[in-house]
């Protein structure tokens, strides 16, 4: 056939077909998306520090292991309260002359998703220590350590932040470990990563592939039907207080033998879980873990009961009803 024997016609047709399909399937959708989406009105633009921190995030290739996308499937619910939408990324434009837009959605979740990390783990002390040596806070972590974002000094200067590192991870270091500007910026970026709620507070769409709800019967004793306290503890608390409940010296207090955990002042205890705590200068600030992660009374009860009965702790368990009353009160006062 003549067509197949003419290299101009043959290669021209192949190229035309490919370019045509490319325009339809990539370029037009990309331009449409770019044109028809704007950032949510209540979205916070990155601060100067956070923007500088994002550059550190990009330069070190963190996106190789951390996604920033909450898919509309039930299993992604742990990473954000609603599925991600185009508007979430609409504010991200070309980084600079040399570098392309960095939406950093990622394709690998070797480590956790970071869409909402600013809400899930806002503690600056935790983040700095975790960057210096992840295994100091999360024993099983395989994340790289980033010691080059820190320096060793004899004196902590004004406005500088010292990182308290457990002895096991500071062998051969005599001075004080101080966070460089880069580390502080990176933490500022991580803290800025929060899902913006839709202005009307609604969900943009449902999470798909829902799990079948396990029916909770209220009549048959609350303790037996509670969610798994140890799992919730691992997910929400162990990062700082450690799986063995012993905390980290100089950073996070132990729960093993803690008077608050073992004592009877349940209101105080629930308050700390829900709203955070910052009354002890020798330890880092605790964020509002319960509120930030929307923990339900059942979940808080399960966590409390796990803490009261683990690592040699041996205190009496509490009931969901007691905890629910306190949480309802906290939520009411918080609204005012």
């Amino acid at each position, binding site marked *: 056939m003549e067509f*197949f*024997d003419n*290299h101009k016609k043959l*290669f021209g047709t*192949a*190229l035309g*077909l*490919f*370019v045509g*399909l490319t325009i339809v*399937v*990539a370029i037009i*959708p*990309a*331009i449409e*998306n*770019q044109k028809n*989406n704007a950032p949510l009105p209540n979205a916070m633009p990155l601060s100067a520090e956070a923007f500088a921190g994002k550059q550190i995030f990009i*330069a*070190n*290739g963190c996106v190789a292991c951390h*996604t920033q*996308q909450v*898919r*509309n*499937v*039930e*299993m992604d619910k*742990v990473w954000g309260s609603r*599925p991600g*939408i*185009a508007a979430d*990324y609409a504010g*991200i*434009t*070309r980084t600079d002359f*040399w*570098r*392309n*837009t*960095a939406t*950093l*959605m990622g*394709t*690998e979740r*070797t480590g956790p998703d970071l869409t909402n990390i600013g809400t899930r783990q806002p503690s600056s002390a935790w983040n700095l220590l975790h960057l210096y040596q992840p*295994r100091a806070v*999360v024993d*099983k*972590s*395989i*994340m*790289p*350590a*980033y010691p080059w974002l820190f320096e060793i000094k004899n004196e902590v200067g004004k406005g500088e932040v010292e990182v308290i590192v457990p002895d096991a991870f500071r062998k051969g270091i005599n001075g004080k470990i101080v966070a460089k500007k880069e580390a502080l910026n990176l933490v500022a970026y991580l803290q800025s990563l929060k899902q913006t709620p839709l202005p009307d507070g609604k969900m943009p769409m449902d999470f798909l*592939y829902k799990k*079948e709800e396990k029916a909770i019967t209220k009549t048959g004793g609350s303790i037996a039907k509670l969610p798994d306290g140890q*799992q919730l503890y*691992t*997910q929400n608390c162990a990062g700082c207080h450690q799986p063995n409940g012993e905390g980290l010296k100089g950073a996070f207090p132990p729960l093993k033998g803690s008077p608050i955990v073992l004592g009877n002042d349940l209101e105080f205890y629930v308050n700390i879980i829900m709203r955070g705590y910052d009354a002890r200068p020798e330890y880092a600030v605790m964020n509002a873990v319960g509120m930030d992660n929307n923990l339900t009374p059942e979940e808080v009860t399960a966590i409390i009961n796990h803490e009261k009965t683990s690592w040699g702790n041996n205190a009496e368990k509490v009931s969901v009803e007691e905890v629910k009353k306190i949480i309802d009160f906290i939520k009411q006062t918080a609204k005012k």
Partner: protein
Amino acid sequence: MESKNIFSEGGIILTIILILIPVIVASIIVIAKAYATINLYFKRKELEKFNNYIKELTPEEIAKLEQRKRELEFSLSNKELSGETNPVDGKGLIENISPADSIRFVQQKKKGQPRPNIEPELTKLILWYLGCSVFWLLFGTTVGEYLGIKFVAPDADHLSWLSFGRLRPVHTNAVFWGWASLAMIGLAYYVIPRVSNVPIANIKTGYRSLVLINASVIIGSICLMAGINNGGGEYREYIFPVMALFGTGVIISLINFIKTISKRTTREIYVSNWYIISAMMFLLVIALVAYIPNWQNGLGETIVQGYYMHQGVGMWFMLFNLGLMYYFLPQQLNKPIYSYSLGILAFWAQIIFYTLIGTHHFIFSAIPWWLQTVAIVGSVGMVIPVVAGTTNFLLTFKGSWNKLSGSYTLPFYLIGIVFYFTGSLQGTAEAFRFTNLIWHFTDFTVAHSHLTMYGIISFMLWGFIYTIVPRLTGKEPPQITVGAHFWLALIGLLFYTFPLMYGSTLRGLMWIDGKPFIESVQLMFPFWLWRAIGGTLMWFSHILFAYNFYVMVKRKVEIIIPTSAIEILKAKKELENQTTTN
């Protein structure tokens, strides 16, 4: 959803079948071997019994047996027809008689074909391309090996230039643009003039292109390690000035090839050239789409990323390699390709379906739902070109399977073709929505990309290189190290991918169950260890490959003691010439 069995899902079933194909083939081999062993055992038993019986034979019986033996041993003298004269090989027909005086540890395979008529300058150019590609293979996979170790020992070093996030793109880009791309273009410099039946238009252009591509990978790797990257999209981590070097390198070689083809002395354009030229044109389109900033804001970047990363592997590496395969496979089997039309069908089907599937990397993301569906449909459509291509290759093999055991190149071809089938269809299975739930974001993707980029592309390229380099230089690699290269690479790949696929499935199910994330990290530890072991075997195989390549191209003149009549006479004449000139 929880109550639903995952084994009732189409994608899962398909994947299991695909995984089972090589497993079943291996099982059949194992069963056959076991059967033979058992048989041997029973035969031995029988022999023992029989030996006891022989001991008890009577003299009469022995006499009878001897009588029969004499009768059976009767034979002609073999000289009834030829008489008593000495045989003469008047036409020089008796050649290649290999004496059995060496231990046959390695089977003697077919020798490479004698050197065809290729310009020495072109030979040199091709060897330079292949040499550079071998270097980048070693470099890239050494980095990859180290990254695999980092999963097991995250505190192996604390240097910013060697940290995981920076090295990962160094590995992927070096093997993509350095190893596979340079090897492909180098081989194209051989194939295109051959099938067009004209010399290459310009050899110098080839060198310019080589320098540009090498410069791109060198500068790119340094940039990435220094923390300068394009913003996180996979395979487009090189910033635009660096990628522009690569693109320019491809453009000038493309023009060179088209010029050669336009001067061809054959009427038709052989199908290899369709694939090769299209791959090069498409790569340029892909790179332009990926690097032009006008449509990259917000999710535009992600849509383009999905398009780019998949067209990169499918339209550049796969298309190019298929083109090379359409030349080398028929040539190695010494027969035409089974069906030219199937090759043409696969070509157009590949363009139509493959172009659509990019966004299947972002299923369930904020990308428009219709675009995700188009990608899934396109992924299913890929069954057509894959089945057409595989069928074509296997039917070309049909009737020549006996050549497989006698060749050191064909096993590479066959494994490449088998993985072309299983690896590509695995991609289809992964694109379904349900399979995305389990496997997306896990190391399953990493396993898949190694099954394809390594199992298909690298195996095919090795086959091609072992085919042509001995022809260009007249030196053959030692067969024992070629065999070791093949088996280490294949076994290493299986050790690498199977545990990762299994572990990732467990990990995905754990995520669906809502287990704490860190428990899913801990779950992967043994599988990551297996990956490092498999990776190490693969890495060793590359060292052997580099050695083989060195043996094939080394300049050292070997001292050959003349053995055949021609050589002896030639040597004698040369010696005599020397003495007369002295």
